């Protein structure tokens, strides 16, 4: 199974961290449900073209924080995650996306009012569709 993970070449965030966060986001958004299998370390390493050492590190951290479970000989699966945790992670993901948009707006020297106006316009547009 292919996971929709996209590594950013421009980010200063370490790769194992990017993988960890994207898998967490997939779990929070429900794209990965409890019990879903994750690709083996070797397979994901090949797909993302990074070393298996990096993937192992990301999987270990995810397992440690209770997002995934590995059972000997069977593979790695999505663990049962507290719904409250999922909700807080989902809002975190939205906040991160908005923060990124704000920093791009700042590069283009937009004022607070400009940004708020743009958001309102976009919301309006979405409603009309």
């Amino acid at each position, binding site marked *: 199974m292919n996971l929709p993970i996209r590594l950013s070449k421009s980010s200063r965030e370490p*790769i194992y961290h990017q993988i960890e966060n994207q898998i967490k986001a997939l779990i929070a958004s429900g794209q990965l449900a409890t019990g879903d299998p994750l690709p*083996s370390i070797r*397979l994901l390493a*090949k797909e993302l*073209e*990074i*070393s*298996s*050492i990096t993937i192992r590190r990301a999987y270990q951290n995810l397992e440690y924080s209770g997002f995934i479970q590995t059972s000997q000989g069977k593979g790695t699966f999505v663990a049962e995650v507290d719904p409250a945790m999922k909700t807080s992670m989902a809002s975190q993901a939205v906040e991160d996306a908005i923060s990124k948009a704000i920093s791009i707006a700042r590069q283009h020297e937009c004022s607070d009012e400009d940004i708020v106006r743009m958001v309102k316009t976009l919301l309006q547009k979405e409603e009309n569709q």
Partner: protein
Amino acid sequence: MTFPLTIRNIEKSIDEFHLNIQDLTFEEGTISAIVGTNGAGKSTFFKMLMNLVKQDNGEIEVFGHSVRGEDDAWKQQIAYQAQTMIGCDAFTGEQLRNLMAEVYPSWDESLFRRFSEKLNIPLNKKVQKLSPGVKTKLNLALNFGKNTPILMLDEPTAAMDIPSRNYFIQFLLELMERGDRTVLIASHQADDIKKLADYLVFINKGSVTRLLEKDSLVSSYRLFWLKEEPQVSRIPGEIKRTYKKVILSNHPEATMAYLSKNGLVIVDEQVPELEDIIQEILMEGEMINV
């Protein structure tokens, strides 16, 4: 802990050529790519590990046993694929299979059959009748069949077609799943290195680097696109400048500190491609700071 393969302080001189390896330890369950230009000494390196070329100094151990010891049982722990199949021309694939199955107690018939059938290797033809690509495939099938804990492959994908190469990669990764195999692979294919390798070892002008973890190596370099051209010819960490404003750094922290201190604006930045890093290391003899 006993490692599958350890190398200590190896020196070898052949005429003008000197090869020097300080210390290399290959861990179980890892794939290491041996990277170097043609004639850099990659094949000599492999032959030395197989005790086919004797080193002048130093020690090579396979699971703790010296390859120069009297007991050569260690040979059954390694499947070694040289660039050419020497002395096999008169035999068919089936005949070679019978030979290998006898020599290697770990022989796994299903691995051999699965690989041969998938790639349509004609096992009843004599090796001399096979094209270079098919020879390589047969050689791989035999080496996979040996089912040894250590696999050393010298340019295994050189003459292979794209679907076969993809299947080879998939097959090798499946073999790795059990976690108790150790693979050394020399390849000029960036794709092989990207998809397979955990570690890289560079052989350049006879000197051999230590094991460099692939992702740490890549992230120790960074490309910066600047708004303006820096006034000094070489800023901290800079190893290459293109289009006057694009800086390749092998010390990103130092480069960023300098840029921010001097008010130079970074328009964009990213980690370079592995190919570009290999190019720098092999052609420019770039120092490795990992």
